[in-house]
């Protein structure tokens, strides 16, 4: 990042397991799902690189026209980005400004963290819901993209919906883990 930012540089935090057993169980299932998603997303990124390289080769070696490559890569990268956003959240990888952390007491900071998560949850859940209505509409109306290739738009919309829904669930579990009493046993 410069990338600009460089998550690599940020300290890698293994998330602490929630103490509430129900939340912990749900958290474990989501973590398992996230591991599968990370593999899938990695493959998607590599596939996008291969497709773009392929398009250079066929355009110049075979003089063939390229019409689906860019859009296919867009779909693959959209998939990788949205689907893995929950696993990034699990490690608190979505960066924020933590300038006030040092100024507050431990107790106030705990409250602040819950507030931050509630605000994040509100936004992500709203976004997931609106992605769903978008997906539903695209599916019912059979919308396709405006390009010559014209792939159906439910593909990227569904990826966005699933990704944002998983992200919302992840944040919800983080809030629940912070709020629910640890002593709860079934």
């Amino acid at each position, binding site marked *: 990042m410069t990338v600009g930012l460089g998550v690599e540089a940020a300290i890698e935090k293994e998330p602490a397991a929630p103490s509430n057993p129900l939340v912990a169980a749900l958290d474990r299932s989501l973590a398992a799902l996230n591991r599968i998603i990370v593999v899938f997303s990695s493959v998607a990124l590599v596939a996008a690189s*291969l497709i*773009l390289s392929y398009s250079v080769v066929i355009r110049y070696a075979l003089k063939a026209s390229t019409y689906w490559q860019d859009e296919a890569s867009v779909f693959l990268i959209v998939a990788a980005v949205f689907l893995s956003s929950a696993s990034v959240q699990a490690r608190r990888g*979505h960066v924020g400004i933590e*300038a006030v952390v040092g100024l507050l007491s431990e107790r106030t900071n705990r409250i602040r963290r819950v507030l931050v998560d509630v605000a994040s949850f509100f936004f992500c859940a709203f976004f997931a819901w609106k992605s769903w209505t978008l997906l539903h509409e695209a599916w019912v109306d059979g919308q396709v993209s405006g390009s010559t290739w014209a792939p159906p738009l439910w593909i990227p919309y569904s990826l966005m919906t699933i990704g944002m829904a998983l992200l919302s669930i992840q944040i919800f579990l983080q809030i629940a883990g912070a709020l629910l009493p640890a002593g709860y046993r079934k």
Partner: protein
Amino acid sequence: MSVLAIGLLYGGATIAVMMIGVPIAFALGLVAIIFMMFFMPSASLDTVTQNVYEEMASITLLSIPLFILKGAAIGRSRAGQDLYSALHVWMHRIPGGLGIANVFACALFAAMAGSSPATCSAIGSAGIPEMRKRGYSGGFAAGIIAAGGTLGILLPPSITMILYAVASEQSLGRLFLAGIGPGMLLVTLFALYAMFRYRLEHRRASAAFDLGGEKSELLREDNLTMRDRFAALPRVLPFVILLTGVMIALYGGFATPSETAGLGAVLAFALIAIIYRVWTWGELEPILVATLRESTMLMMIIGMSLLYSYVMSYLHISQSAAAWIVSLHLSKWILLAMILLMVIVLGFFLPPVSIILMTAPIILPPLRAAGFDLIWFGIAMTIVMEMGLIHPPVGLNIFVIKNIAPDISLSEIIWGTLPFVILMAIAVVILAVAPEIATWFPNLVMSKGR
């Protein structure tokens, strides 16, 4: 409510939400949708996701994860170390040659990896211990690497510039080329400073030795033969080929910038597989996971910044702010100075990607009206944002260095980077006096209108 009141409220709400620590992406999105609820027709809320998707679904923007992938592949291999040691063998006779070799290694590596933190850790993890072993002070060694690493966002292919190209509707190919001249200017300034500082430390060390003190490592001479020099070459060659190959593909008109990203990633993986035998899933997984984390975080910020500026423009906040700046009738250079100062202040808190996307609609129209070339401004703004990477409080590179060399104290690192912050400020001034440093090269390679 007047536009001014809404604008102030929008800015105030953003600062408040961000300051309590809501992740930047969610904070921007949250503020945007809340203002949509109150100040925009309700139908706009229904299309909010479509809006984000359509803005994001451009292959230029979405090539960013692929540039990150290429950088991660190279950054996690031993390439940085090899590059650095080969340059050292060639430059060790120059006074301060070791430091200069590090500056050059950072620049070359940054051009391949495109990321500042990745460059810092790849070159720094070999370079800092070596420089310190040879008697360089901790702050000096840290400063060289921190500053050298920032070249990652100036030299092509830089992610920051991709965003600037999208936000300012300028040609990405041109912007990439425009970064090369100023990049070399910075490399030269950094190298001259390294030489000067080396002489200073050398003189102090030899004075101390003459007074009967310890013989510092700084005074020891290296004896490397021509054979050593040529033996080091093959290790860098593949990366130079990768670098030039990608550039030729882009500027020879064979590939679009996004295709270059894909091609670069594929070539980088091929090179690390052939040279460093990195091909098992166990070795590739950390590269892919790191890429996904960084890309996802970055792309979420980008997507939500686009939503944020869409709302800002729908509510006429950006247009009014831009019109207000124009109506001040500031002289050209005062306007530029004020805007760059604002970028510096924002750089205290925000990463370059959000600075660009949030401020572009406000600052670019007045700059254009004042007669600035927006390609040139993109370069000046990038250098200013580079400064933000090495000065406190955020100064990401400072913390990367702290991670790889924990025994150098934070204040030593900050004092060590300070001269480089000043050199960058000087570079911006030089660039303002001689804008050709940036614009000459793109004009030479590409025809004017392209």
